[in-house]
C-alpha cells in the first residue's frame, strides 16, 4: 500500500517534469515570434531577446527556468499581457476566481448527482428514475455552454434575477449562474453513474442475503448498498474535474470572469502571443490535472479494501488496482 502510493507520487512528479520540459521545448524551439514585430525594430527585438536569455542554448534556458520557479516561485514576466507585469502577481487572483467557482460547481454537481442517482435507484421505473435518465441524457449530450447561454439569456437578461456578468464584489449572487451551468455536466454524469452502480449492487447476491436475513429499508441501503456503490464514483470525479477546466474557459468568457481560463485565451488570441503566459498556464494546468489524478487514485485505493488486498499480492496490483485499469475493465 505505502509502496504503491510512493511509486504513484514519484511517477506523477516525473511525468510533470517531462511535460514541463516538452512544453518548454515546444514553446521555445518552434518558429514564431513572441514580440509584435510590426511595432518593434530589429535592434529592439534583438536586445529584448538577449535580455530574456532567448539566445542561450535550450538546456541552459530550461535549467534557468526551473531554477527560477523553484527558487523564487516566479514564472517570469508577461511579454504582451498586462504591460509585462510579473505573472506571479496576476496568477493568484485569477486562480482564486476560477477555483472558487469551479469548487462550488463540482461540490454542488456531485452532491445533487448523488441525491438524484440514489433517488432514481430506490424508485426504479418511477418518476425520479425517468427524471434522472432524461437529465443524464440531456446533460451528457448537450454541450454545457448551450445551457450557459440560455441561462444567461433568460435569467439575467429577460428576467433580471441574476447579474449578467460575474462581479467579485457580490460574489455569492453572481457566482450562482456560472457555477450552476458548470455543474450540470457533472451532475448528470454522477447521477447516471450512481444510479447504475446502485442498481447493480441492489441486484447482487449479498444484498439478497441481507434481505433474507430480515434487513430492510434505510439500514439495508446505507449499510450494504451505498457503501459498495459509492466507491467507484470516485473514479468518475477525476475526469469530471478535468472537464471542468475546459468548461471553465467558456464560462469565464460568457460571464466575463477574470480567471485562469480567460488568461489562457487572452494569452493565445491577443496580438503577439504571450509565450511566458502560455508556458506558465500550461504547467499550471498540467500540474492540476496530474495532481487531481494522483489524489483521487490514492483516495480510491484507501477507500476500497478489495484493492488494498489485491495490491499486496505481487504483480496483480497494476491490472486491478488503479482506477484507470478499472475504467478499462468497465469499458470492455
Amino acid at each position, binding site marked *: 500500500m505505502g509502496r504503491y502510493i510512493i511509486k504513484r507520487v514519484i511517477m506523477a512528479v516525473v511525468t510533470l517534469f517531462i511535460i514541463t520540459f516538452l512544453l518548454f521545448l515546444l514553446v521555445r524551439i518552434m518558429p514564431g515570434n513572441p514580440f509584435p514585430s510590426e511595432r518593434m525594430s530589429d535592434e529592439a527585438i534583438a536586445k529584448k531577446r538577449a535580455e530574456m536569455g532567448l539566445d542561450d542554448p535550450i538546456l541552459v534556458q530550461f535549467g534557468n527556468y526551473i531554477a527560477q520557479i523553484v527558487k523564487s516561485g516566479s514564472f517570469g514576466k508577461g511579454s504582451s499581457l498586462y504591460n509585462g507585469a510579473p505573472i506571479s502577481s496576476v496568477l493568484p487572483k485569477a486562480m482564486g476566481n476560477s477555483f472558487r467557482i469551479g469548487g462550488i460547481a463540482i461540490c454542488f454537481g456531485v452532491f445533487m448527482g448523488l441525491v438524484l442517482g440514489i433517488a432514481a435507484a430506490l424508485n426504479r421505473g418511477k418518476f425520479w428514475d425517468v427524471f434522472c435518465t432524461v437529465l443524464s441524457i440531456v446533460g451528457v449530450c448537450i454541450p454545457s455552454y448551450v445551457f450557459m447561454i440560455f441561462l444567461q*439569456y433568460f435569467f439575467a437578461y429577460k428576467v433580471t434575477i441574476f447579474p449578467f456578468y460575474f462581479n467579485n464584489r457580490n460574489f455569492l449572487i453572481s457566482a450562482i449562474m456560472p457555477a450552476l451551468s458548470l455543474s450540470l455536466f457533472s451532475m448528470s454524469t454522477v447521477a447516471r453513474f450512481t444510479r447504475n452502480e446502485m442498481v447493480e449492487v441492489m441486484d447482487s447476491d449479498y444484498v439478497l442475503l441481507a434481505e433474507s436475513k430480515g434487513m430492510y429499508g434505510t439500514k439495508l441501503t446505507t449499510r450494504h448498498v451505498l457503501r459498495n456503490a459509492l466507491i467507484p464514483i470516485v473514479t468518475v470525479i477525476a475526469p469530471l474535474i478535468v472537464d471542468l477546466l475546459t468548461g471553465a474557459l*467558456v464560462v469565464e468568457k460568457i460571464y466575463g470572469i477574470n480567471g485562469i481560463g480567460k488568461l489562457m485565451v487572452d494569452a*493565445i488570441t491577443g496580438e503577439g502571443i504571450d509565450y511566458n503566459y*502560455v508556458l506558465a498556464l500550461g504547467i499550471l494546468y498540467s500540474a492540476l490535472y496530474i495532481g487531481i489524478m494522483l489524489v483521487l487514485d490514492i483516495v480510491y485505493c484507501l477507500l476500497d479494501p478489495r484493492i488494498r488486498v489485491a495490491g499486496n499480492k505481487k504483480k496483480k496490483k497494476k491490472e486491478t488496482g488503479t482506477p484507470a485499469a478499472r475504467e478499462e475493465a468497465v469499458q470492455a
Partner: protein
Amino acid sequence: MSKKKNAAFSYEENTYVPTAEDFVLDLNQDITTDRNYASQGFWKGVFTRFFKNARAVIGLVIIVLIIIFALIGPGLNHYGYSNIVSVVDEETGKEITARSMPPHIPALHKLFTGEDYDDLFAEHTFIFGTDSMGRDLWTRVWYGARVSLLIAFVTIFIDMIVGMSFGLISGFFGGMADNIMQRFVEIANSIPRLVIVGVLATFMTKGIGLVIVALLLTEWIGMSKIARAEMFKIKGQEYIMASRTLGAGNARIIFKDVLPNTIGPIITQMMFSIPTAIFTEAFLSFVGVGIMLPQCSVGSLIEDGFNNITTLPYQILPPILVLAFLMLAFNFVGDGLREALAPRIEDM
C-alpha cells in the same frame, strides 16, 4: 448401501433387445426449427438489434438529415457562405446591405398575411435571417455544419487508425514494449487538451489546421486503450495459437486475426469520439482559436450569435440547435451500436 444401489441398475435385469424399428425416424411427429436461437450472421444480428432500438434509429435519422442539409443546404440558394447580400435602393441610389435581418420568408409571409413584403428585400428569402454583416444565415449554418462534420470525420478516422495500431501493437507484444508505450500514453494523457491548443497556437496560425492537429494529438489515446484491452482479451485464445502454429507472422496475427474481432468496441468508441470532436471544434472556435472568418463552423456561428445575443437572439438559435442535435444524435447512435454489437444475455 452402495451395493444395493448398484443392484438396482444391474445390467443383467435389462432384457430388452432393440429391433430395427427403433432406429426409424418417426416422421409423424411435428418437427420445427428453433427460431429463438436461429443462427444468423454477426452483422445481420447487429442490424436487427440496432434497428429495434428506437432511440438509435431516431439518432441515425437526425444525423442523416443534418448530413443531407449540410451537403445540399448551401447550394439551395445563390448567396454563398461569405457573400454579403445587398440591394440598390432605387430612390436614393445607395447600396443597402441586409444586415441583421430576422427570418424573412416571402412565401410564408404571403401565406399568413396575404401580402408581399414591401421592403427592399421582397424578392429575397432568408430562412434563418442574416447575420450582423449581412450574410445569409441559412447558408452559413449548413456550410458550418459541413465544416464541423468534415473536421470530426477526418480527424476521428485518422485517430482510429493511429490509436488502433498503437493499442494493438502495444497489447500484442506486451512486456518491455508495452511498458514503454504505456508510459508514453500516460504522459500524452496527462497534458490537458487546452494546454496542447495553447502551445500549438504559439507557432501555428489559428484556423482549421490548429483544430485538426489538436484533435489528432488527443483523441487517439482513448482508441488505443480500447484496442489494447481487446488485444489482451483475444491474444490468449486458441485460434491465435493455431494461426501461429500454421506459420502466421506477427503482422498477420495482429491485423488479420485480431483486428476484425476488435472492430465492434472500436466502432462504438468512434461514435462517441465524433461528438467529442464536434464539441471540441465548437468550443475552440467559440473561444476564438478555431475557425476564422470568413470561414465558419458551428462553433464560430455560436460565437457570432453570442456577441449579439441581447439584441438579436434569433441568430444564435440555428447553430446551437444544430450542435445540440448532432451531439444528441451521435450519442444515441453510439449507445445503440454498443448495445447492438455486444448484447448482454438478458437483452436477447
